[in-house]
């Protein structure tokens, strides 16, 4: 049985114009000890999807439908108290993007680690919790004496390690890593990722790695889910997503990241912006930015199609994989396309989006 089973999850935000469908009908499963990467641009809904698992979202968000079954427990039906005492941190912990801001600045890092241990484990004495915090630090290559330091006294990489120590403190079954290395320089990035992997294996925890960086997921993840416009548009094992993707968006994302092995390769970005998720219309959400969009893409929302080995793609033209892969590698394909719906192009010159951008929706808790 899998550890986590998300079925048709819909997490919506109330907005002035209606509901922002940040996660709109996502299904995903995760095995014990498995790492899955959620890849997509800012505003694609990947963070909302991950945070829905512990129902950590602002007051104006709610789970509209679907189910999240974690280790036999239906998360959507738990009371907030049960959620706090049984699931949060004890079973599912988090590694945030910017560890420096993840600690409360007025308490020492050690105090904060001890606090969470003692909250979840009744009867753990202060001294025991302290010993455990020191051990965690030692494990992660930080001098144990530094548990008495305040967060601002740590360097970025060190703070991230301390954050990982905090995330590991209760040996959770699942960790949500939200772009855990984006704020760090490349060398440290690599070491942090290795540390996370090693510790994750040591306690046999599963992980959801949220990132917009394809190189990070390819190194760390067993499977990759590509998120666009609140939906998982393609999911497969990491190798397939990197080597043999079928969705034009995945192909585009792959282009946008440097491949160190081939130096002369030019980076190609995907023109346009993520879609407005307030009551989206029927049709493929990537169509306005997709160089391969046909008439059908505008009128019919693509159904998930399976291509074996858990490779699932939501695209009308996924069967034409050879053509897509060949064309998507060329810069002209992306640069010379007309953005937007064909019939609108004649009138407004092809502005891709007129609606409100959903940028900054994720993680911005007001």
């Amino acid at each position, binding site marked *: 049985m899998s550890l986590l089973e998300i079925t048709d999850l819909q997490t919506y935000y109330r907005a002035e114009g209606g509901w922002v469908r940040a996660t709109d009908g996502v299904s995903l499963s995760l095995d014990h000890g498995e790492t899955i990467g959620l890849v997509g641009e800012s505003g694609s809904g990947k963070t909302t999807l991950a945070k829905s698992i*512990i129902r*950590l979202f602002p*007051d104006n968000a709610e789970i509209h439908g679907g189910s999240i079954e974690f280790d036999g427990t239906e998360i959507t039906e738990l009371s907030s108290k049960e*959620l*706090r*005492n049984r*699931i*949060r*941190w*004890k079973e599912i*912990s*988090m590694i*945030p*993007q*910017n560890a420096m*801001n*993840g*600690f*409360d*600045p*007025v308490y*020492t890092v050690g105090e904060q680690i001890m*606090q*969470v241990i003692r*909250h*979840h484990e009744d009867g753990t004495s202060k001294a025991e919790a302290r010993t455990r915090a020191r051990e965690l630090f030692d494990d992660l290559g930080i001098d144990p004496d530094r548990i008495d330091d*305040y967060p*601002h006294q740590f360097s970025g990489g060190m703070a991230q390690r301390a954050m990982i120590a905090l995330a590991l403190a209760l040996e959770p079954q699942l960790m949500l890593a939200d772009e855990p290395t984006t704020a760090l320089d490349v060398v440290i990035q690599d070491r942090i990722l290795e540390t996370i992997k090693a510790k994750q294996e040591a306690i046999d925890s599963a992980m959801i790695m949220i990132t917009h960086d394809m190189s990070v997921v390819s190194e760390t993840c067993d499977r990759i889910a590509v998120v666009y416009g609140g939906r998982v548009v393609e999911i497969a094992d990491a190798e397939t997503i990197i080597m043999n993707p079928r969705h034009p968006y995945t192909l585009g994302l792959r282009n946008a990241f440097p491949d160190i092995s081939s130096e002369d390769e030019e980076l190609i970005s995907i023109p346009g912006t993520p879609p407005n998720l307030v009551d989206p219309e029927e049709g493929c959400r990537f169509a306005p930015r997709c160089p391969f969009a046909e008439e059908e893409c505008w009128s019919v929302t693509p159904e998930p199609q399976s291509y074996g080995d858990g490779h699932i793609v939501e695209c009308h033209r996924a069967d034409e994989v050879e053509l897509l892969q060949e064309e998507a590698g060329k810069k002209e394909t992306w640069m010379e396309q007309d953005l937007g719906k064909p019939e609108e192009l004649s009138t407004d010159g092809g502005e891709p989006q007129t609606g409100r951008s959903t940028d900054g929706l994720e*993680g*911005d*808790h*007001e």
Partner: protein
Amino acid sequence: MGLREFVIRRLVQLVFTFWAFFTILFVLFRMVPGDPTSMFLLDGMTAEQREQRIAELGLDQPLHIQYINYIEQLLTGDFGQSFIYREPVIDIIVVRFMNTIVLMGTALVIAYLIGVTFGALMGWWRGSRFERGGIVVTLVARSSPEFWVGIVLLSVFVFWLGWFPSSGMRATGGDLGGGFVQRYGSLDFLRHLFLPALTGAIVYLATPTLLMRSTMLDVLKADFIEIKKAEGLPERTVLYKHAARNSVLPLVTVMAIATGAAMGGSVVIETVFNWPGMGREMVRSVNNNDYPVAMAAFFLMGSVVIIMNFVADLAYVYLDPRVEYE
């Protein structure tokens, strides 16, 4: 730099601040028009009498001599004689100063306790009816003139309900002497204190409430609040131990400044409730060109501001580990 060195440096700064403050006070008081004798001219004081009086008070000396005398006197705690009462200034001012401190101190403590708590809750429950109502109540309190609040409280609690005495500090009158506990420890005193202190609290409530609310809103956006929620900590812990604890920092500075302002700003409340405090004494002394009393009053008020800022700096070091000792 260590904490010790920081405190020492801050103390040295304090001395310089005081010196600058003394000097400005001195210059200001020599610049004001009129002299202490001008009030008596109409009473038929002759030119010789006037000269003599000015000489008695040392006002015929050159300015730099006056300045040196003045500094000498301040350092020895001697504020001179009141021109009007012909009594040592210190006797007039100290008791009144204490009365004001007790009154305004109580008002400020109430205002800040309530303000911080309500401000924190208003920020926490953003967009709720509680928050909206709270803002309205706070702004109404803020916009009400002190004398009006005082009069309303007087008519309700004194003239209508008859629960509290209307004015003064004690039922029996008499002199203001006696020890601290004797003066401020009795139930009778507390009954007299209640209404004026409440008036002050209502007037001073808005600043801490609104400031606390707005810093709460900022702090609640911080990543660590989300992490603390993800840690499964109870809401109360996240609210008080983390959100409110971080939001209270800017209030420390504001409270220091408010304390100073309250010392001088108490004059209306003292008048409405006939409270024998320093605010009234200050106004009287300025009106009568009673330089020594006015100067001592300004001196004490300014000192409170300077000292409170010093205390706020030290409190900051204790409350916020990020403060660098520079």
